[in-house]
């Protein structure tokens, strides 16, 4: 027998909770929904667009009636619940009918606050809350001329803009002397006001409404100073009040909102509440991102999983007025303990302010160009130390990683045919169409449906911007701590912590202990878990090859035709005629179709059938070659120049250093691929400054550089430190590698890792802390004892034979 769940309030927060419940426990509940409005669940945020005529009602419906019936949900539209009988666990409707529940979810939302002045109930005075209000406004716009919006906040300005688009003459009345004071500082507010005035809006600032005047219908608005203005329509947009009367009359504890715990339970544990109607830790929320966070937590508890807590939200805001870019987040006003970083270009209408305390972003205000808003917001929520890039932070994230397009291309200005995702050939038009047609909300949704940003991920910023642009600002915000994948709610760091603390030593144990939602994970989480286990328990953990991607499973790179390529290790890129001869003979013997010199100074043999791999490895092994790990999330190559042996500029023996580094590090599994290079002088012929670990020889010793890569999003290294001796280079290298292995997330290269944790962190751990460095290096050496076994030789001798031979040949 299913438990009975009743949702009161057919809005975004409530229905989102149901969606999450259905994902987690599809068969647990028999669900009934009561909504006062005569529609399915629609996207309230889009009301501004509806009013401006940019969308239709159909466009903004999120769940149509089909959705309710497909999921077996009983939907009662246009039916208000008037009473909760908690003792008998029943809700009572306006028409006297009643319905019983085992669990009740209140998502009654909020209503516009109507300021208490005479005439506030005259016909023509409305709020801005639902489709009905929008219809009233559109109706008025057809026949009437003068609209007065009381309230110059987010909602008021969106209403004003919409009514202006509909042809009305609109005056915004605001109590204070700056607009949107809850989201903007004075500078940004001034720029916003100017730009809205240029579009034709009128403003009355610092004006306090005294009365709304009219006989049968609103005619005028009068202010405290005695002035009056004409009004055919008055929209109250001074704020919202949580709808708590239903809960209150049922004796559920309410203050400003329905008071809920971190599990979104009210004082009656059978009754949950989410959305704008709730008060959590003293705060109420009116933006969608927090509501969705509540929904996730609430659904988790309704589904009897009971592992999540809602701990409040940091919110960010964007104004949904087409053509005006505005963003704010956090504590943007600052106080005596904060500093301000400001960029202002009046001529171009660009303003950016970051409020910083102890090199951590506390708040941000942006006007005119908000493309970096989500980046700042991430830095804010992650409390990232920005000291390493503080000098340039105001200029944005440099580039969004759209290497084909350059920095200055704003997504909004891009044509529909512009390619956003170069890996999968997805254009802006494709993405916008998918977002609109399939009603996508999150980055993951867009990835699943369009593949955009699902491969190398470098266009993620662009896709997020497009998402924000298309569906409204607050949607795209990813959860603060991202779960590893859809199989779990735990983040990378949670999982690594659990592995260490609870001595979990197999993939199965991790899946069981952390109560994975899928029977045996997926292609995304299993390789990550396998890596974390390899890293945590060197020598003890038995590598789970079925959790490795094919390339690592068979120690060769799969090619588009299903054949493989192999790259033998050539230490430091230094070879001999004899070595080349033996390679040539082997390539000829196996009729290798293509022999290619790689960017990392190695020789790639391409087009080898899988069944031939063990034989060719056998020959390579006899000739003294070991695997080059060109297929793995592992230490790849050490590229070198000829250095002081030959080069007239060479300052140190970079070739020997390269060979020593490669002998030290080969075979190590890492979160992502890891490349090294050693240059013999600052001319840097080995391109050490775009490697994960780059060494540049100078007359006085060695400069160490970290966190660089070529590829889609080129990043030059950060300078780590200078060391005097060759031994020190090796120790620092080992320590850095181990720190990266232990702290980075799986599939995170050193570049994004360092941007996430900060170079200062790396320096603290291993440059300024000699003991820490030595300990890290020791752990690396210890794990190398088990890692430096040539996988090719083992397989040439028969290991994993099943990988290389067919099960059977038939017919």
């Amino acid at each position, binding site marked *: 027998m299913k438990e009975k769940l009743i949702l009161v309030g057919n809005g975004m927060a409530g229905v989102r909770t149901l969606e999450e419940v259905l994902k987690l426990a599809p068969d647990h509940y028999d669900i009934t929904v009561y909504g006062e409005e005569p529609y399915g669940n629609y996207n309230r945020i889009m009301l501004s667009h509806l009013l401006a005529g940019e969308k239709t009602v159909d466009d903004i419906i999120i769940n149509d009636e089909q959705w309710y019936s497909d999921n077996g949900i009983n939907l009662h539209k246009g039916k208000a619940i008037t009473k909760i009988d908690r003792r008998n666990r029943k809700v009572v409707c306006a028409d006297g009918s009643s319905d019983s529940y085992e669990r009740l979810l209140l998502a009654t939302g909020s209503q516009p606050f109507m300021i208490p002045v005479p005439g506030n109930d005259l016909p023509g005075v409305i709020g801005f809350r639902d489709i009905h209000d929008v219809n009233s406004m559109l109706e008025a716009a057809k026949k009437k001329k003068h609209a007065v919006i009381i309230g110059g906040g987010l909602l008021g300005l969106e209403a004003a803009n919409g009514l202006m688009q509909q042809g009305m003459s609109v005056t915004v009345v605001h109590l204070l002397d700056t607009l949107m004071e809850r989201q903007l500082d004075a500078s940004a507010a001034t720029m916003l006001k100017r730009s809205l005035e240029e579009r034709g809006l009128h403003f009355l600032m610092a004006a306090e409404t005294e009365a709304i005047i009219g006989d049968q219908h609103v005619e005028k608005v009068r202010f405290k100073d005695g002035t009056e203005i004409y009004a055919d329509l008055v929209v109250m947009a001074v704020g919202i009040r949580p709808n708590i009367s239903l809960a209150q009359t049922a004796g559920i504890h309410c203050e400003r909102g329905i008071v809920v715990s971190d599990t979104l339970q009210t004082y009656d544990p059978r009754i949950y509440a989410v959305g704008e109607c709730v008060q959590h830790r003293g705060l109420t929320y009116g933006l969608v991102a927090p509501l969705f966070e509540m929904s996730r937590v609430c659904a988790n508890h309704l589904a009897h999983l009971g592992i999540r807590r809602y701990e409040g939200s940091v919110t960010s805001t964007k104004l949904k007025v087409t053509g005006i870019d505005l963003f704010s987040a956090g504590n943007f006003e600052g106080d005596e303990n904060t500093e301000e970083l400001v960029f202002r270009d009046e001529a171009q209408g660009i303003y950016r302010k970051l409020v910083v305390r102890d090199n951590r972003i506390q708040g941000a205000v942006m006007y005119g160009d908000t493309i970096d808003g989500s980046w700042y917001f991430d830095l804010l929520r992650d409390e990232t130390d920005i000291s390493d890039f503080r000098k340039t932070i105001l200029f944005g994230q440099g580039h969004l990683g759209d290497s084909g397009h350059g920095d200055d291309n704003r997504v909004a200005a891009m044509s529909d045919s512009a390619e956003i995702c170069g890996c999968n050939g997805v254009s802006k038009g494709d993405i916008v169409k998918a977002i609109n047609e399939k009603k996508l909300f999150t980055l993951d949704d867009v990835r699943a449906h369009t*593949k955009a940003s699902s491969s190398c991920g470098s266009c993620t910023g662009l896709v997020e911007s497009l998402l924000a642009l298309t569906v409204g600002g607050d949607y795209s915000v990813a959860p603060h701590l991202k779960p590893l994948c859809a199989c779990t709610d735990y983040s990378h760091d949670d999982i690594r912590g659990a592995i260490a603390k609870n001595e979990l030593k197999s993939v199965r144990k991790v899946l069981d202990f952390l109560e994975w939602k899928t029977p045996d994970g997926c292609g995304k989480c299993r390789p990550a878990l396998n890596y974390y286990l390899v890293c945590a328990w060197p020598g003890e953990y038995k590598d789970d090859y079925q959790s490795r991607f094919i390339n690592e499973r068979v120690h060769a790179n799969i090619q588009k035709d299903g054949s493989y390529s192999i790259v033998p290790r050539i230490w430091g890129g230094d070879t001999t005629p004899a070595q080349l001869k033996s390679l040539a003979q082997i390539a000829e013997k196996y009729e290798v179709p293509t022999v290619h010199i790689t960017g990392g100074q190695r020789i790639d043999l391409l087009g080898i059938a899988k069944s031939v791999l063990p034989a060719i490895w056998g020959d390579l092994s006899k000739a003294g070659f070991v695997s080059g790990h060109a297929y793995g999330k592992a230490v790849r190559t050490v590229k070198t120049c000829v250095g002081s042996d030959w080069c007239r500029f060479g300052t140190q023996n970079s070739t020997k250093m390269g060979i020593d580094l490669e002998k030290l590090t080969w075979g190590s599994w890492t979160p992502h691929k890891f490349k090294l290079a050693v240059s013999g002088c600052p001319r840097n012929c080995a391109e050490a400054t775009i490697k994960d670990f780059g060494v540049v020889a100078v007359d006085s010793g060695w400069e160490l550089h970290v966190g660089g890569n070529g590829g889609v999003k080129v990043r030059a290294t950060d300078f780590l430190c200078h060391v005097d001796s060759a031994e020190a280079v090796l120790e620092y290298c080992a320590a850095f590698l181990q720190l990266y292995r232990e702290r980075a997330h799986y599939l995170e290269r050193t570049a994004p890792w360092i941007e996430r944790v900060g170079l200062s962190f790396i320096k603290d751990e291993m440059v300024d802390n000699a003991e820490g460095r030595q300990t890290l290096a020791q752990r690396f050496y210890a794990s190398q004892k088990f890692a430096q076994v040539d996988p090719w030789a083992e397989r040439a001798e028969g290991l994993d034979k*099943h990988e290389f031979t067919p099960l059977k040949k038939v017919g």
Partner: protein
Amino acid sequence: MQAVPGLEDQDTQWIDVGSLKDIPSLGARVVKSAKGDIAIFRTADDEVFALRDRCPHRGGPLSQGIVHGKRVACPMHDWKIHLDSGEAVAPDEGCTTRFPVRLEGDRILLSLIPNKKCTHK
């Protein structure tokens, strides 16, 4: 013993292609046939499935993918394919031909007459 839902009848020609233990748990092996490669998958709870070893997307060898639940992730572009139906996991669309396969004791018996031909490419 476990039967795959499908159309096989008493006339089905079953071919013994090997033993269950020849395939790693959560792994796959290939049967080479005149009609092309057929991938035999083994799940965590020792069910077996057989699909043409070609992803409906761009022909990647599904036998080389990561098996999870009753799905395999193609090694080429990470499409997920349902092992029991051959259909791509939504929102991707496409399907790959599946073959009747069953266990008798620990022997794997395969039929070369497809369960279902796919209408997709």
